[in-house]
């Protein structure tokens, strides 16, 4: 299971990458592996407001629907539209295929996220 060192993580298996003042959010390798084949992603829309720890998108596998929680707050500036036609990209490369790009509202929220070591511990306990 891959857990890149440069990313930050949540206990609910989302990752965050900060680049040029924006945050990219996706799901972890562990998440895609436990969900199984992803068949549909319900994306938010541009300009939607994300609130930390609130649900912002839904991922459907063959078996069930799972909500994604926003690791940090902010306004959506872009969604990964590739996922509309090819949701399985989240299975093949969960770190290359981000789900939303947001404007970071409160830098201090980033401090509440886990580093890769802490996240690996979370996955080991599940």
């Amino acid at each position, binding site marked *: 299971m891959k857990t890149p060192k440069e990313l930050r993580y949540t206990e609910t298996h989302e990752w965050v990458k900060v680049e040029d003042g924006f945050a990219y959010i996706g799901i972890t390798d562990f998440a895609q592996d436990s969900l*199984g*084949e992803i*068949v*549909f992603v*319900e994306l938010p829309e541009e300009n939607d407001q994300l609130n930390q720890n609130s649900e912002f998108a*839904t991922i*459907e596998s*063959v*078996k*069930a*629907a799972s909500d994604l929680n926003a690791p940090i707050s902010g306004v959506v500036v872009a969604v990964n539209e590739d996922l*509309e036609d090819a949701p399985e990209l989240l299975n093949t490369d969960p770190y290359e295929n981000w789900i939303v790009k947001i404007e970071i509202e409160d830098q201090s929220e980033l401090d509440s996220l886990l580093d890769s070591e802490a996240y690996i511990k979370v996955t080991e306990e599940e």
Partner: protein
Amino acid sequence: MKKTVLYDHHVKLGANMVEYADYLMPIQYSAIKEEHHAVRNDAGIFDVSHMGEIAVLGKDATDFMDMIFTNNIRSMTANQILYGFLLYDTGGVVDDLLVYKYNDEHYFLVVNAANTDKDFAWIKSQAQNFDVEVLNKSPQYSELALQGPKAESMLQSHTDYDLSTLRFFTFDDVTLEGRSFMVSRTGYTGEDGFEIYGDHTDIKALFKTLLISHEALKPCGLGARDTLRFEVALPLYGHEISETITPLEAGYKFAVAFDKPAFIGKDALLKQKEAGLKRRIVGLEILDKGIVREGAEVFKDATKVGVVTTGYLSPSLNKAVALALVDKPHDKRGTELTIGVRKRLLKAKVIKRKLYNK
């Protein structure tokens, strides 16, 4: 929590194990879609040892079965199988089941895992005025389902018994690799195939032998079992049939023999039939992007007219489809409805209940 005799083997094969009907069962080994396609195109093998087996024995066995079972018991010949229901007086379903007839004094009932204890108690409670013995044989049996277009040729390579003579919905004693099993030509996938009953050691040996001998044979979990039965509109207890959803509402009138003088639940069903059904199970094709799941509400304009009983992205059709219990007159084919999914309303259209046809 109970384990089937194959538990360790499932874990070795990399299965995800989940709790189902008080058993730890494999939900999937590789991926649900892959296992689903294996059964539609080649063959898959399922551990269904959690299913319940109940024997009804004795002088009055035929009279008794005739009273508790909706289908025509007296029409059965030895080694034949019938699908039907046990009903409450209200017409609601105790369970759906297969009845295997050995002879007039011996029937073998295969019931849903989650209902085994309830069924056994209910059957016994009806038996007081009959000379019958009702036995819960579930602990003695393990069961495999070998399903798919290649099931017959695969199984044939393990026996001298000519399996082409074993017709749909019949069973026989069959020796496979020197061990004896009860084999029926039945299944829950919409494909040709067999259900194989035996003692624990024999089933364990057979499962291993089959997987080693046939490269195209995939072990399949409960996930694929559900998508397969769903596509061909086979009901699942608690979803399309239940204590409150009758066989008529589910579209299973053919398994209810109204021409029998009596069976438990007949009066209630007859009344429902004569008054006209108020709702029934239909197929839905989801026209907007998205997947609807069990429990989603179905609307006509602003009025709630039904509820989804099972929903998936169908692996065979690669389309989002559902089974739903819908009020009349919105059940007519072609009717446009909407379904509430989280914050959205998805457009849907009523289609045939059997979603997938070969």
